[in-house]
């Protein structure tokens, strides 16, 4: 059955200093409730919105990065509805059913393996405040607690065409979007709630269902899978799928009917008279493009052509700006790109759990920095340690944060190369592996099996060279 998925991505412009329409700080996290407000973002009578120039600049960068066309002028409309987290009981947004006033339209973003999706529009709008419940649940609290610290924080909304048919593709696309906004420096994706995604999905040409309240990009894929299955099941049983809004229940991992009567809404859009029509000017696009940081695709290209990385490895690095930055930083200390890239992509990534990967805070809690990896790579390149030792060292230093050279020293210090000690272990192994010993007497190569047992018994601390020598001596003696 044909599946059509469209996305509505909201990205907080955590990179700007102030809110979209007033000079309150944009950074509201962790502050005392209602300590980051002013008359304007509180919706006091007589206050007027003052559009933030940097927010417009950032929204322009996002539009260009997504291949959009930027119009000569942009304007803001009012989306009128009542809700306790909305100080003015209308939201200032660029959405407009009557013409083009958003900052970006008709874009296209390629992702994955020569796939691409259309970008319908990119627009600026303001975030509402936050509702909190003392009992933790909306249903059981006898009053709501409202915090306006977040009210007025700038959001960029990216709306795609319904060009997706597979949740896996959606995931790839969202990863790319995240990488782009990280590289542009407009939004710190690691902050909780800084990027949100709602999805629209229909199956077999049926009704379109909107899924809201998905808290992370990773959950979007899960929510879509659930919803597609739900719709397919209903259709196969000849049940009507209703066109509605459903909420993702993260705890129970399912979508459920929304409690708010969203079909009743008539938003009565009209142009806001207090925010002037902004004339971007002929050189806005050129100036914005010129001041834009390097985009992930360009950076990947550079990694491949300049550093000789494989496409796959380069892709993993740029998928997450943190990693790409880590890589280039390590190169500054020791220029061995392929070696360092592999250490990062293959080995370091092995120490990061899935959850952290989903939340895009890859390096949280990891105590190694670019200098560590650079030194590790250098030590291996110069034959100071072999690869398997290096891997062991990495395992230790991600917890301890020591430099590899220090860890190696410690390791050497605990290496067992004392003859008597080793002989004790070897004798013990010979006792338990009589068959292998017989084999080894005839076939010298089989000694490696016994060596392995010795290494096992010493938890890898036996000096392999010394152990092998002693082992072979013993074998000779024993015959």
């Amino acid at each position, binding site marked *: 059955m044909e599946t059509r998925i469209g996305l509505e991505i909201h990205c907080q412009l955590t990179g700007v200093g102030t809110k979209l329409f007033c000079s309150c700080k944009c950074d509201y996290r962790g502050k005392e409730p209602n300590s980051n407000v002013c008359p304007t973002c509180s*919706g*006091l009578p007589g206050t007027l919105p003052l559009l933030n120039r940097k927010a417009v600049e950032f929204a322009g960068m996002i539009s260009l990065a997504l291949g959009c066309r930027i119009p000569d002028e942009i304007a803001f409309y009012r989306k009128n509805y009542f809700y306790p987290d909305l100080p003015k009981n209308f939201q200032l947004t660029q959405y407009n059913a009557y013409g083009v006033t958003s900052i970006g339209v008709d874009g296209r973003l390629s992702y994955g393996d020569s796939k691409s999706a259309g970008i319908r529009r990119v627009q600026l709008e303001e975030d509402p405040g936050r509702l909190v419940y003392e009992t933790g649940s909306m249903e059981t609290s006898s009053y709501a607690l409202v915090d306006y610290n977040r009210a007025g924080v700038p959001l960029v909304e990216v709306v795609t065409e319904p060009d997706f048919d597979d949740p896996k593709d959606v995931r790839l696309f969202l990863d790319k979007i995240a990488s782009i906004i990280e590289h542009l420096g407009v939004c710190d994706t690691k902050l909780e709630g800084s990027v949100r995604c709602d999805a629209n999905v229909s199956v077999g040409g049926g009704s379109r269902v909107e899924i809201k309240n998905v808290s992370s990009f990773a959950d979007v894929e899960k929510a879509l899978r659930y919803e597609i299955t739900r719709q397919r099941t209903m259709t196969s049983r000849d049940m009507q799928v209703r066109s509605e809004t459903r909420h993702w229940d993260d705890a129970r991992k399912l979508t459920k009917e929304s409690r708010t009567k969203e079909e009743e809404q008539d938003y009565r859009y009209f142009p806001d008279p207090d925010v002037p029509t902004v004339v971007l000017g002929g050189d806005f696009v050129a100036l914005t493009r010129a001041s834009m940081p390097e985009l992930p695709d360009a950076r990947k290209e550079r990694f491949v052509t300049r550093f000789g990385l494989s496409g796959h490895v380069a892709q993993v690095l740029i998928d997450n700006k943190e990693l790409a930055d880590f890589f280039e930083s390590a190169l500054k200390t020791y220029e061995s790109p392929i070696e360092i890239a592999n250490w990062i992509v293959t080995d370091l990534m092995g120490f990061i759990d899935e959850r952290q990967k989903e939340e895009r805070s890859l390096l949280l809690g990891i105590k190694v920095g670019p200098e560590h990896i650079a030194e590790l790579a250098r030590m291996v390149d110069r034959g100071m340690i072999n690869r398997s030792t290096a891997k062991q060292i990495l395992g230790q230093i991600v917890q301890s944060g020591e430099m590899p050279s220090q860890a190696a020293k410690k390791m050497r210090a605990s290496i067992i190369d004392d003859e008597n000690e080793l002989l004790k272990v070897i004798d013990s192994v010979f006792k338990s592996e009589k068959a292998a010993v017989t084999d080894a007497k005839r076939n010298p190569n089989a000694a490696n099996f016994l060596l392995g047992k010795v290494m096992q018994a010493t938890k890898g601390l036996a000096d392999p060279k010394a152990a092998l020598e002693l082992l072979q001596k013993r074998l000779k003696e024993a015959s």
Partner: protein
Amino acid sequence: MEVWRLGAADVAAGIRSREFSAEEYIQQLLERIERVEPKVNAFVTVQGKEALEKARLVDRRVKDGEQVGPLAGVAVSIKDNICVKGIKTTCASKMLENYLPPYDATVVRRLNEAGAILIGKANLDEFAMGSTTEFSRDGPTRNPWDIGRVPGGSSGGSAASVAALECAVSLGSDTGGSVRCPASFCSVVGLKPTYGLVSRYGLVSYANSLEQIGPVGRTVSDVASVMNAIAGYDESDNTTAPGKPSYSMNGKSGGLRVGLVKEFVQGADPQVEKITQGAANMLADQGCRCEEVSLPSVEFALASYYTIATAEASSNLARYDNVRYGFDMSPEGYEWNSYFAKVRSNFGDEVKRRIIVGSYVLSSGYYGKYYLKAQQVRSLLRKELKSLFKTHDVLVGPTMPILPFKIGEKVDDPLKMYLVDVDTVVANLAGVPAISVPAGFADGLPVGLQVMADQFEEQKMLNAASLFESAAGVQRSPEL
């Protein structure tokens, strides 16, 4: 010495030259207010103690030879929909019964810098919606010329306080004529600036694409001096135009080309028409070239105004849900939709009607039929006005089509009430400046002449107004 009768210019001069003290002036005004307020009811709040303190401060600075502003000591009343920090700003509504703004409107700040003294907050129609100041929770303001009649609105308190000699000047707000209408009905001067000339920061929004704060005074000169204090770019209001204008009363006034708008004259009562014609003749006698002109789109002006104004109002007033500020009503026990709906049932009739009409015209499916068409009318009017202003310096006509009517006469018939705005809404729709100047009396009731000029041509408009004011010699005060 009866200094309470003096206009702003004379007060400022007198205080500066120490002919009399600001304290004495304010004291006399406060006594005057006490005497006439029971009849006029122009004030929501009187700031007696604070005004006297400010007056003493002015006197001290004058005595010490310090620099004082051009309006130092002048008593001003401010419409109660303009925010003054720490003083109740109620908009004549239950919804803002307890509201104390934590900030000053820009115009208030500028008046303070000029040295003016706030003597009280003036009464208005609730949220500035009305033409008679009858829709006020604090009772109607009465016309000082006949207290059984309306003073006009919505800035009725502003005009009445100036006419009744309770203060020298006032600040009102004009969305569809709300400064000019009461100025005309009370025989004082009222000016609506070009849209974007005066900051709206601190003006409680009713229809924000149409409204401007405007001064009221007993002479064109006083109104001009208030404009000099308040007009000009404000970084807190992105709809203000760049620059800071300065108006003088020495403008060249000979040879003005005046257009008498026939649609305004035709719609007026015979007595009003007669006085208007007389005014045009007076101007001609002063060397102006007067001729009849036509502004055809006046036909659609009221429908356009009431579409846009109600639409914007329905959205601007949505914020009054009593959660962040308002009046005392505990939210506990209520579900939020019920709380909002109950709280907002405390708006007055006229406000409720306009919010509902506004929601209607903006609702899905009707946007093109009403709102877009209404915007089209604005463009049409502007086009026609631009064309007329190519060949005329100013356009004139009666400010109001009728004489001040009895209190209660139109209060139950909203549409009849709306029709009195026919001459004034044009200036708001097109964003051009307009001023009402006393033109005479009919049956003892005031008639005003409205003068309009092109955008940002306030100086031309003031020149014509001043010329007419001298020629007409209508200045007098009501018996109270």
